[in-house]
């Protein structure tokens, strides 16, 4: 199957000249665009994963965040010089946590706060149980059995015996290694639980099983206020972050953007409305097509739905088919089912877009929104999960609650470019202030300092 689901290849009921006339463009431009879409396979560059670029150094961020930010980071780090941090999670590759740790760990170490990263091990039975826990904590129904509890505890115990906790700050990511806190009594470390998932509506039995472990930590960290639980320990807010130097977010030249658009048959001379997301019902790609169709009655634009998940996920394939059915024969809907390593191409498509949509019905934090805002794009997004932390309605983007609302905002932004530009600028500043990797580094340094101060005060009081 050609992953570029080009609707125009199968239809083209109007002659190029008629289409061109209706759009006020020369016919040859229209013809070339159509031919490009009809004939183009995925370019060879995206068929195999590219080599990962070298990890950036702290000084590489100076042009983006400024010298003053680096000064603050170095001052904070200097006070912690020689201290050590251990990060523990359940996977070294794949997933947002591993991606974030891959950047965070070297940057902290470069600041001379030596940071070690350990990954817990476990059999398939362990990861089946923890995946079920993960879903249950997100609210899916689950029957917690004694066997599942035993498997969870047994693998945590095995890892606890294998691992050493000699660092001053131990950070446990997500529920899988949660029970490592049993080692706390043998250490003088600060222990922190970094929860990356939404605990606002957990399965009560699973939460009651895990809660006693959580309560033994010095602090818990959540990605949004709304994801937290009532706990007797301090809870901090660490927003997830993007790396402005990654393939997904680095600056691109206009030629690079143009090349990707040419490869995928995206016409940059007309407005481009884009949603980047897996083909997943919770991202409501069909709703995006419906909103585009409503808006298209009033304004000219193309819709790009760029994502993945349709080849390795049976449900993704079903959703992709639903999207194609909803798109029908519209030649201006470009559906791209991309492999997971197409970060550069996604970056280029986002940068070529006139606006970005993330019309999720349910969402974690929504890093695709962060990416769009960072590129200064006016962004329309569903008011769910962590998205309202990023989009302050009408100031850093617009929030919508329905297909109709989304359609209206597409029309409004396309016909009010000055407003669109303003929220785009504000959105980028919001990301710069709150959601960049450097801010994340700063939060860890601040947390260490604050925990150490609290412990010193407690000792003094005692």
């Amino acid at each position: 199957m050609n992953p570029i689901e080009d609707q125009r290849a199968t239809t083209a009921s109007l002659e190029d000249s008629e289409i061109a006339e209706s759009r006020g463009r020369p016919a040859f431009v229209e013809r070339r665009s159509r031919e490009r879409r009809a004939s183009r396979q995925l370019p060879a560059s995206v068929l195999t994963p590219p080599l990962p670029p070298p990890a950036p150094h702290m000084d590489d961020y100076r042009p983006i965040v400024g010298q003053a930010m680096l000064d603050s980071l170095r001052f904070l780090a200097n006070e912690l010089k020689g201290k050590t941090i251990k990060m523990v999670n359940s996977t070294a590759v794949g997933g947002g946590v591993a991606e974030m740790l891959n950047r965070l760990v070297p940057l902290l170490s470069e600041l001379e706060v030596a940071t070690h990263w350990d990954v817990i091990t476990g059999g398939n039975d362990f990861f089946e149980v923890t995946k079920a826990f993960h879903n249950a904590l997100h609210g899916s129904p689950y029957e917690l059995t004694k066997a599942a509890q035993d498997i969870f505890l047994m693998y945590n115990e095995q890892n606890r015996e294998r691992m050493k906790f000699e660092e001053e700050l131990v950070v446990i990511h997500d529920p899988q290694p949660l029970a490592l806190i049993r080692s706390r009594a043998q250490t003088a470390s600060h222990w922190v639980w970094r929860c990356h998932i939404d605990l606002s509506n957990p399965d009560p039995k699973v939460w009651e099983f895990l809660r006693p472990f959580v309560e033994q930590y010095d602090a818990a960290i959540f990605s949004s206020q709304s994801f937290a639980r009532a706990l007797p320990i301090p809870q901090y807010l660490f927003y997830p972050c993007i790396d402005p130097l990654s393939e997904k977010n680095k600056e691109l030249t206009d030629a690079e953007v143009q090349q990707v658009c040419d490869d995928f048959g995206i016409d940059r001379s007309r407005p481009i409305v884009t949603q980047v997301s897996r083909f997943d019902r919770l991202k409501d790609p069909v709703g995006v097509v419906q909103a585009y169709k409503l808006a298209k009655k009033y304004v000219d634009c193309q819709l790009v739905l760029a994502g993945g998940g349709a080849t390795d996920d049976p449900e993704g394939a079903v959703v992709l088919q639903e999207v194609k059915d909803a798109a029908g024969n519209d030649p201006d809907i470009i559906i791209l089912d991309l492999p997971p390593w197409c970060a550069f191409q996604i970056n280029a498509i986002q940068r070529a877009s006139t606006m970005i949509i993330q019309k999720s019905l349910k969402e974690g934090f929504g890093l695709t929104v962060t990416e769009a805002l960072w590129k200064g794009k006016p962004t329309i997004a569903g008011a769910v999960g962590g998205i309202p932390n990023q989009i302050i309605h009408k100031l850093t983007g617009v929030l919508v609650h329905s297909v109709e609302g989304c359609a209206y905002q597409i029309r409004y932004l396309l016909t009010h470019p000055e407003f669109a530009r303003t929220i785009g600028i504000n959105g980028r500043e919001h990301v710069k202030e709150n959601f960049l990797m450097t801010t994340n580094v700063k939060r860890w340094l601040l947390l260490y300092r604050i925990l150490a101060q609290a412990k010193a005060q407690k000792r003094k009081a005692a």
Partner: protein
Amino acid sequence: MPEPTHPPLRKPSRPFYFNTSESLLRIGRQKASNLSELLDALHTCPEDSVFQHTFRTLQEHHFIREGFSNDFGHWSLFACNEPALAEQLASVDVREFTAIEGLRRRMLEIIDQFLQSHPRSGARAAYEPFYFCASDLVVLPTRFVADTLKGFLDGLNQVPVHSIHHHFIEARLRLHRMTNDFSQWLEQEKGLTQAADAIERIDIYTNTMEGVRLQIARIIAESMN
């Protein structure tokens, strides 16, 4: 035409140390799902929560010029759809307060009066809850220290924008006086009373924090001339 006369600039007895502040956001225990709950929670929440949702929110959204002055006003509009209340809350200028308790009382008065005149609004569910948070603050030095006006201007132009917020807005709570660190230093150490007053009059609610920085710099540059 006679040359305008300026008072001779004093040599300062103490230099101006540009500091900045960074904060970590702590999630509070209280939340409000309607305006009555907001009123109750605002009565009992710790001072650092009031500080977070008023003073700090200005820093966190320093790049926005319009429509965002404190979290209570913003929530009243976008989650409760109460524009009249939102306008009143948003019009509270944090710089009129040198202590958090006074600011808390003012916010409570506004919400209380609104709910008395709009009793049905109190229990109406908000679109999304208001989560009370607080900040753990850490003050950091910058590389800039000034003992001349030129040095002061250089520092002002290069410090992080958080430093402007720290010295210009949060200073009131530290000084317990209706002034700011910049005006105080210019007046006490340089005798520039007019410039100090002009800086104090800058409207922070119709400017971004970068805009505030530019206005302060312009006032100082004029004093130097």
